[in-house]
């Protein structure tokens, strides 16, 4: 029997635009225990966390803290209630020292009129907290000089300055190297000993086994499993994450592959991926998947010339090359859909028309003069083909829905007759209808002989769309699956567990 909870989440429901994101979710965090939260992308984990730290309000259900029902109306209120969150993007100021960052906004003062910073107290408290966490970081060091793992420790220390009862950590091990993860886990154990209740979001089995006391699995917004960690096996966890429903939302396709269009050998990039080798053939979809921080996204960037490569080569159609900038890659027939369409994909103020033709600018303007009528015809054509819904072609792209924007970001490459498509999270943040359209588009591309490199963290998508799958972990390719072996369970096993499991079928 668990001791009485520090914080209890009861029957929380939350919907966005009619979309049920959380459905009757129960969760209980007890002081001094580590509660692991697992679930796929879109399962509802981040929404739950946002509710707990006051960014969103639940539609129904209640939150009980130490026996009293509370409403977490804002992030400030959450902090008052003792709930602290360590996000993936650290809120640190790199140019300040560790101690100053720990006390950001809450510098201790002394002297007349509380004018002066009490540096001694600041240093003392910082050393206290850092020792508590088992870190050997100098409080006077500049955060800019610290590696990611140390910065994370500073971020954790920062959230402990106030009195915290609950610490929520969102995939903290994603950006860390192996030895650093060890230290992080030690820190968490220490914190738990100290009486803090910890909610730990992660997918890595070895971490879960080591520090987890209790685990909850979310799937499609519902709580499908809640048990003590020692009473549940890895397989059970994976099964529950994936679910037994047969997903048939991916259009069928026959696989007929041709010659090798792209061959990557020992490609490495600083802090991203190391020694990656893969081949891509005509007519195939190669999925590359792994836990957060595995390097698949950066791999795509390296191939396209967006990211600096530190070693290895790329062969396109037999020609060995390395692209120093996207324009060269584009000339060789490669297309690219970036991870974040808002910052790198769509030009928001520009019209739908101009966004669509942005990749064939040169072709549309021989001698430097734009052929506007031809442009118009081409766009009319392609917009209908990829199914973009817009009141007018001259509307600013920012007025389009995410799904329509994404259709443009992908579909415009059709105008170039690209042979190789590198798609990074192509269906992130878009509605179901648009997703289907994108999948259909991908199938069409492949049927016409193109090759697709699908870089995604959406397991269902990878399984549903890929002919072959490469599983990556911490920058390395750990396994390759093809044919019938491409299942969610197999992928998760490879990705999360230390043992290299199933091979090809």
């Amino acid at each position, binding site marked *: 029997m668990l001791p009485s909870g520090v914080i209890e989440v009861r029957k929380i429901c939350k919907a966005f635009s009619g979309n049920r994101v959380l459905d009757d979710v129960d969760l209980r965090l007890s002081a001094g225990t580590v509660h692991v939260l697992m679930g796929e992308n879109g399962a509802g984990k981040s929404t739950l966390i946002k509710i707990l730290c006051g960014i969103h309000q639940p539609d129904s259900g209640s939150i009980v803290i130490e026996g009293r029902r509370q409403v977490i109306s804002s992030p400030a209120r959450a902090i008052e209630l003792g709930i602290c969150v360590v996000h993936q993007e650290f809120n640190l100021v790199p140019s300040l020292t560790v101690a100053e960052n720990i006390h950001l906004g809450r510098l201790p003062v002394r002297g007349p009129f509380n004018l002066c910073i009490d540096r001694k107290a600041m240093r003392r408290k910082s050393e206290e907290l850092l020792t508590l966490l088992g870190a050997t970081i100098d409080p006077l060091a500049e955060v800019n000089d610290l590696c990611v793992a140390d910065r994370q420790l500073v971020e954790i220390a920062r959230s402990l300055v106030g009195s915290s009862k609950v610490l929520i950590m969102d995939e903290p091990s994603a950006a860390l190297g192996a030895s650093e993860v060890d230290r992080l886990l030690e820190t968490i154990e220490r914190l738990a000993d100290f009486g803090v209740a910890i909610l730990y979001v992660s997918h890595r089995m070895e971490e879960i086994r080591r520090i987890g006391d209790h685990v909850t699995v979310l799937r499609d917004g519902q709580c499908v499993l809640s048990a003590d960690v020692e009473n549940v096996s890895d397989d059970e966890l994976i099964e529950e994450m994936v679910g037994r429903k047969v997903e048939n939302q991916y259009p069928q396709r026959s696989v007929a592959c041709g010659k090798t269009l792209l061959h990557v050998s020992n490609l490495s990039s600083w802090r991203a991926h190391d020694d990656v080798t893969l081949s891509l053939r005509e007519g195939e979809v190669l999925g590359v998947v792994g836990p957060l921080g595995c390097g698949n996204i950066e791999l795509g960037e390296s191939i396209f010339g967006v990211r600096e490569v530190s070693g290895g080569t790329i062969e396109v159609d037999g020609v060995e090359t390395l692209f120093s900038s*996207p324009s060269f890659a*584009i000339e060789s027939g490669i297309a690219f859909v970036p991870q974040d369409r808002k*910052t790198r994909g769509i030009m928001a*103020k*520009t019209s739908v028309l*101009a966004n669509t033709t*942005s990749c064939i600018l040169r072709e549309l303007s021989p001698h430097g003069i*734009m052929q506007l009528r031809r442009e118009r015809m081409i766009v009319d054509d392609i917009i209908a083909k990829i199914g973009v819904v817009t*009141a007018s072609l001259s509307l600013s792209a*920012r007025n389009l829905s995410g799904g329509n924007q994404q259709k443009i970001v992908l579909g415009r490459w059709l105008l170039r007759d690209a042979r190789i498509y590198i798609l990074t999270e192509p269906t992130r943040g878009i509605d179901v209808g648009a997703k289907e359209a994108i999948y259909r588009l991908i199938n069409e591309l492949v049927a016409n002989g193109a090759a697709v490199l699908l870089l995604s963290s959406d397991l269902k998508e990878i399984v549903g769309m890929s002919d072959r799958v490469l599983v990556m972990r911490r920058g390395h390719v750990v396994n390759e699956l093809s044919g019938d072996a491409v299942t969610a369970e197999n992928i998760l096993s490879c990705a999360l567990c230390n043992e290299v499991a199933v091979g090809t079928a």
Partner: protein
Amino acid sequence: MRSPLAQRSSGSIWNWRQLSPLLIPAALMGILAVIEPRFLTSANLMNILLQASPLALAAMGQAVVIISGELDLSQGSAAALAGVIAVLLAIETDSVAVGWIAILVVSVILGAVNGFLVTQLRIPSFVATVGMLTYADGMAYLITGGLPVDFPPDGYSWLGRGYIGSIPVSVLFVAVVAVAMHIFASRTRAGRALYLIGDNANAAVIVGIRPSRYRFYAFLLAGLLTGSAALILTGRIDSAPPTLSATLPFEAIAAVAIGGIAMTGGEGAVWRAVAGVAPIAILVNGLNLLGVNTYIQLILIGAITIAVVALQNVQQPIWFRWRVFS
């Protein structure tokens, strides 16, 4: 699901930025016509057009740079330096053509330097062009010893003071350039690329457009237009003083802002820069007619620039920004 605070679609015409270039001059003219009867005479209106011409050219040049996401603060000194060198050469060779060509060539070279500093050395544009400003200013003074260069050969000032029929050459010149700029912005690859780059340079890179190349062109173009403004200005006074128009870039930026082109780049038709000149020219003219101190013009232009840009950024009504200082 749109939150009540959502930005209105920019397709709507009830948008301050879209309307300001039309509303402000209309309002100003209305007020002035009432206060000062001399305002609405054809002679005076022609006067306004004349005064506005060089600024219109400079504003178009500035617009191109701002649309691409940068800023050119060197326009005034560059114009002065180009004017000085051009008139000196014209006098030396006793050739008007040399003078005209020189002024454009020098301005383009200065623009190229700006472009190089910003795109190759990656120096922020406000620093690079301010440095150029000081440098050109100093050079102009150095070459002339602080005195204006007078008496260019006959015919030099035709562009500044000549007439074709009853229309001043400078006004015609501006009209031609405005049409050319419109074609540039809407029908050339470079023009289109500049808008894409100014909107989202990272996205432009992804589709294979190189921001540095086109931004360089933008500075070249700005240089050319600044040179033509210098041509008219020096032609008008038949001399090339080392302080030809110190406030040129500031007035140009004000015109671009008033005309409704976003300071953040990526949008705004070039004609808006010309439209934005109208209120400034009308204001100056009106103040002169009323005998108001010319210094007030400077103040007003500065204040208006800040106000207009600030209003551009206010998309939600002010009362929603209640916690102003948080």
